[in-house]
């Protein structure tokens, strides 16, 4: 099962003729993803990796029945690409692009109100449902099918954590990179709610970082809404100084808010174990699964 995307998801690649998009289109196809169309204005009629290219998302949807898209469009045009995908009433839109102006995202989020589309990102590695489909840039080979859902604000930490899970024999349902920007389409609680309703997902790993209070909010939500699915966590940025942006646009401690210590405290307060270092994420998940009595069930690979 997993969440949001599977082997039947029909995917458009927006900006498919770009170098990175072409490279990742090949990777996504190799993973088994149904890439049915690409969109680059002015390039209709071409093909990329055997995928037909259209001028607009609407054309691509009409011709192929696509229901999802992944966006690899430069930052200054990416917000418009999201709007176009939302307008075409796609179910899931994944935006990989980093450095979209924040106020463009404010407008995008306003435009999306009342619409059916779920946006993942921007500034994210995308989403992967093990052995079914991947939209984005997550390396497929580190994943194994299983019962742990992964939610992360960071790309490489998603890979690092998944690698540790797989090495420990713990397979995954879906890994979702929600992105490092302050304003995004999907936050921890949204992703947690989806995992809560997924019968295949038995436990969740949350990877957060400094900035904002989404992890604190998630801790509260988990305590109130998801008592029967154990959660383990990791938070990066314990040593980050206040007022400094640590790579991600959203990774900044401002006005005393958004410290790693606050997040760890909030998670611990509701019984969620937080790995002490990045090297112990896999171990912490194993420990959490054992404590919940579902380790054997989750030991799938």
């Amino acid at each position, binding site marked *: 099962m997993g969440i949001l995307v599977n082997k039947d998801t029909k995917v458009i690649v927006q900006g498919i003729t770009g170098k990175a998009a072409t490279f990742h289109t090949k990777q996504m196809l190799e993973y088994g993803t149904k890439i049915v169309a690409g969109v680059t204005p002015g390039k209709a009629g071409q093909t990329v990796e055997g995928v037909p290219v259209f001028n607009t998302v609407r054309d691509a949807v009409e011709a192929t029945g696509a229901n999802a898209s992944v966006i690899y469009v430069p930052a200054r045009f990416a917000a418009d690409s999201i709007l176009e995908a939302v307008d075409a009433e796609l179910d899931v839109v994944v935006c990989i692009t980093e450095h979209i102006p924040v106020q463009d995202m404010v407008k995008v*989020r306003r435009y999306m109100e009342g619409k059916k589309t779920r946006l993942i990102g921007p500034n994210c590695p995308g989403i992967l449902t093990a052995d079914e489909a991947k939209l984005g840039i997550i390396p497929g080979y580190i994943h194994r099918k299983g019962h742990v859902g992964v939610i992360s604000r960071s790309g490489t930490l998603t890979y690092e954590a998944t*690698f540790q899970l797989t090495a420990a024999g713990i397979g995954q349902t879906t890994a979702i990179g929600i992105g490092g920007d302050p304003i995004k389409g999907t936050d921890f609680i949204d992703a947690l709610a989806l995992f809560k309703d997924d019968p295949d997902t038995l436990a969740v790993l949350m990877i957060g970082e400094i900035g904002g209070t989404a992890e604190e909010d998630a801790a509260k939500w988990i305590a109130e809404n998801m008592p029967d699915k154990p959660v383990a966590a990791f938070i990066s940025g314990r040593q980050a100084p206040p007022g400094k942006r640590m790579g991600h646009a959203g990774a900044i401690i401002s006005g005393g808010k958004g410290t790693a210590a606050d997040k760890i405290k909030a998670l611990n307060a509701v019984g969620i174990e937080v790995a002490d270092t990045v090297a112990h994420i896999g171990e912490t998940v194993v420990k959490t699964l054992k404590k919940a009595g579902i380790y054997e069930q989750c030991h799938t690979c």
Partner: protein
Amino acid sequence: MNIHEYQSKAILKSYGVNVPEGYPAFSVEEAVENAKKLGTPVVVVKAQIHAGGRGKAGGVKIAHSPEEAGVFAKELLGKTLVTKQTGPAGKVVNRLLIEAGSNIKKEYYLSFVLDRKTARVVMMGSEEGGMEIEKVAAEMPEKILKETIDPAIGLAAFQATRMAYGLHLPKEAVRKATKLMSCLYQAFVGKDCSLAEINPLVLTEEGDVIALDAKLNFDDSALFRHPDIEELRDVTEEDPKELAAAKEGLNYVNLGGDVACMVNGAGLAMATVDIIKYYGGEPANFLDVGGDSTPEKIAAAFRIMLDGGQAKGIFVNIFGGINKCDLVAEGIVEAAKIISPDGKSLPVPVVVRLEGTNVERGREILKNTPIENVIMAPTMEGGAETIVKLVKEAEQA
């Protein structure tokens, strides 16, 4: 990106925000001249640094004549100001703002910020002007009024009016305040700000509403459409290593310690800084080189970390996802050749942890490299422990 108060006020003025008359000064003579030009009985001499808390640190002086303004200018220019926000090292004052004095009747707080939860711009106001808003939020959150702005509408007139009455401004000042709010919102949106803060906003004895202080921060991702803002960058306010890194397209933050790290990905880079500290080292920096770095870029990263003798050891922590470890390893070896004086040695130990795609080939390349001082770490934990140990040994030697 941050700019100085006088620059923020010039921008706000162009949007119609009421600010005191004032001029920047880079020398004592200029300060005296500007004070004369103002011709007001009271002039304020304000140190211009990118940090708050200047008043309490002695960076704001009230002068009653141009001559006195000159005396204060002489005192402040070149002085290192240590405020709550500068850190213990403080910041050197190179610029002043010479401003007309105001007859303050009451101080307020007004700001526009981005709210992550609602994905909207929020206007915040408080009657506790002059105080740090974080302190007000912590101690008396009920004293902060908020208006969430619909980007399709902008700041609605009723919201500004509600804020003005909520702040208990006298009736005759309400329209002046709502106009200021509206202009400030236009500036916030027009210049892609991430913060626009007026603290204090003042009501004068004459009944005017003035932005007595002004702080604007800008969204770095939107600077491409604001070349005029980019021009206001004051490089003397920024860490030289961070500036050099930015020029190379590297994501670098100086943390002051001596155990450096070079990582792919911001999240893993933060976590690597944390694990260095966990094993007792003092992290020198945060550095995300990205996944597909060229040897030249990696060499530039090495140079920045080593510059001034800061790094006593470097921990390279790479997870090869889509990017292949063998290419990363080749990049490291080539970079080492570029910066090494004899093509085979590095000035400090470099511990490399590679994991992910083509890891075996990557490790092989590093094992066979002629570069001395490159040490392979079998695990991330082991790598972090080793680099901290090596740096400590070097310190004792």
